[in-house]
């Protein structure tokens, strides 16, 4: 009975640790808790009771800082005209309402960047920025493989790739949905 009680106390503590960790990975925390079957939760709880001395240089509890909601910009809502514009630009469709929610979540996740002070910091686009990269001489060294490459295309005439009629904008969103629905494998 005493053992049982100790167990329950520990369980509460453990869940609190999980629950109080910062909201950066809010979904993460929830799912980790969910993932643990009662059995694995027990084994996690039992672990601190083992005789192993914890190395003091290894942090014993999560060190991430909590990011308060009020430090983030307001959550983004994607208006209908932007949905249309993105689909035209990306040439892929959201397919469902869920696809749109997925984008809004991705933006929300990215919003955490604004907590970081980057004033005076230069953007970095390559880790090789500090060295001269190898450049070969500007002469043709290979090629003459047009036929081989054309073979990979579904539709060619002589040495040309064939495309359907061009310069026709995508139809309106509703019509698009109908077209895409019918285009299956």
């Amino acid at each position, binding site marked *: 009975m005493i053992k049982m009680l100790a167990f329950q106390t520990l369980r509460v503590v453990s869940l609190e640790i999980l629950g109080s960790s910062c909201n*950066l990975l809010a979904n993460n925390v929830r799912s980790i808790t969910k993932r643990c079957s009662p059995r694995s939760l027990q084994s996690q709880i039992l672990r601190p009771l083992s005789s192993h001395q914890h190395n003091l240089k290894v*942090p014993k509890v999560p060190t991430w800082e909590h990011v308060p909601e009020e430090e983030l910009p307001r959550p983004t809502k994607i208006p209908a005209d932007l949905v249309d514009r993105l689909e035209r630009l990306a040439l892929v469709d959201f397919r469902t309402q869920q696809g749109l929610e997925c984008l809004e979540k*991705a933006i929300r996740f*990215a919003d955490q960047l604004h907590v970081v002070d980057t004033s005076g910091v230069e953007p*970095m686009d390559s880790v090789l920025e500090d*060295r001269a990269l*190898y450049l070969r001489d500007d002469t043709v060294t290979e090629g003459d493989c047009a036929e081989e490459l054309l073979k990979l295309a579904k539709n060619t005439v002589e040495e040309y790739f064939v495309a359907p009629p061009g310069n026709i904008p995508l139809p309106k969103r509703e019509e698009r949905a109908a077209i*895409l629905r019918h285009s299956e494998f």
Partner: protein
Amino acid sequence: MLGLTLKEVSLAFREGKISPTELCRKCLNRIKKTQRLNAYITVTEEFAMKQARQSEARLLQGIPKGPLDGIPFAVKDNFCTANIRTTCASKMLKDYTPPYNATVVQKLLDQGAVLMGKTNMDEFAMGAGSTDGAFGPVRNPWSYSDSYRTQGGAASDSDWVITGGSSGGSAAAVASCTSYLALGSDTGGSTRNPGALCGVFALKPTYGLVSRHGLIPLVNSMDVPGIITRSVSDAAIALGVLQGIDVRDSTTVPAPSALAELPEDFDVKNICVGIPKEYHAPGLSEETLAQWSRVADLFEKAGARVEQVSLPHTQYSIVCYHVLCHTEVASNMARFDGLEYGHRSEMKSSTEVMYASTRHEGFNDVVRGRILSGNYFLLKQNYQHYFVKAQKVRRLIADDFRHVFGSGVDVLLTPTTLTDAACYHDFTQEDNRTRSAQEDVFTQPANIAGLPAVSVPIALSRRGLPIGLQLIGPALEDKKLLCVAQWVEQRVNFPSISDCDNTQESRKDPGVTRREQTSAI
């Protein structure tokens, strides 16, 4: 024989204990026996046998090409292979057969290594579970190990666990002993993550040290070919062959040294091991934490200097990665339009409609989602706010590492993943974005900063599943990193899967005896 390391097999060839064709046949049989793992998308049986015969002829003449001659290897299906289809586990490239070999594939073939097949993955390497590919999920070989079946309380066949990803097929191939070496790709942890969950060694070299030519790009500024093996010294042999300038990849850098054998008796007395305190992230399992502490102890007891250090921007690294990854994906995926190669839709009312329907049919939800958010971050009104902001945060993260390594730290010791492998059923309860944000949390900073990093298998969890730890080194210090990794490997006695090979005396059932040692903490 199948459970041996690459080095041991190479020796067995020379001593005539086994021939390349015999070994190739054994591996092919084992691929058939382990088919339920779904580790391979394409098995190149005929090509493998042909190569094995050629290798055998060289051995008989006493002129083998090197330590890789006759060694079976596997390649993730996002590296181009001449005349062998390369799908990226996507409908988009389901029938694509490239006319050329990726540089890394060519280098291995030139050494006489024998290609067994192309391995399964998440579609276009976007994922951390190997559960989101057009050819179905990969199963972790440890799902069927005695340790998991008895300790993990797996009640039925449906309790199988994931491999991690996105190079899950490559890790499963090496863990299940169907190949001695496998190529993965590593953009945010895609080689190290499945390496950790499948109990094999995984190396992500310094950015630029290994050519990306022929690797179908995900994030050009972070992609690196990865190496998966059953021992550290095997990975060193492979890196020695693969590294160096490639005229076909202008982002390659010269190798700092020819990578000869690693010293067996590397001394850690003179090294400084940093423990970055920010790598205790929310959700880290108690068991992984205990192993992290245990290995820190090992270093300390051997006389290494172990210091807690700080990489202050770590918690924003995954956010930075998220934005940079999606934007580069949006740009990279623009090439798939149905015109020159890959899937092409039947819809042909206009070019735009053909493009849109080809991409609608060819990409899964994950890929489409990343293309859309990438395009959003790149919109004129968002470009500075998200994309350039992420590039600035990238510099802060890279600078964090620079400061730590500049202060005398030789190598950083961290967990590779938060927990051991999840059951497939549990893993798929959350969407891909959430999963990637959890799974890549410790691995993607090394990609952001272009640093070499490895995952070393350390011990089995109470569920009987592998736990790995990560070591990160300064740029181009890959060899020193491997030396330290080998030192750890020699001390943790990680068990190989006991059902590996029943003809083998020396390693018969190591799962039981060694496991007792490793879990005694």
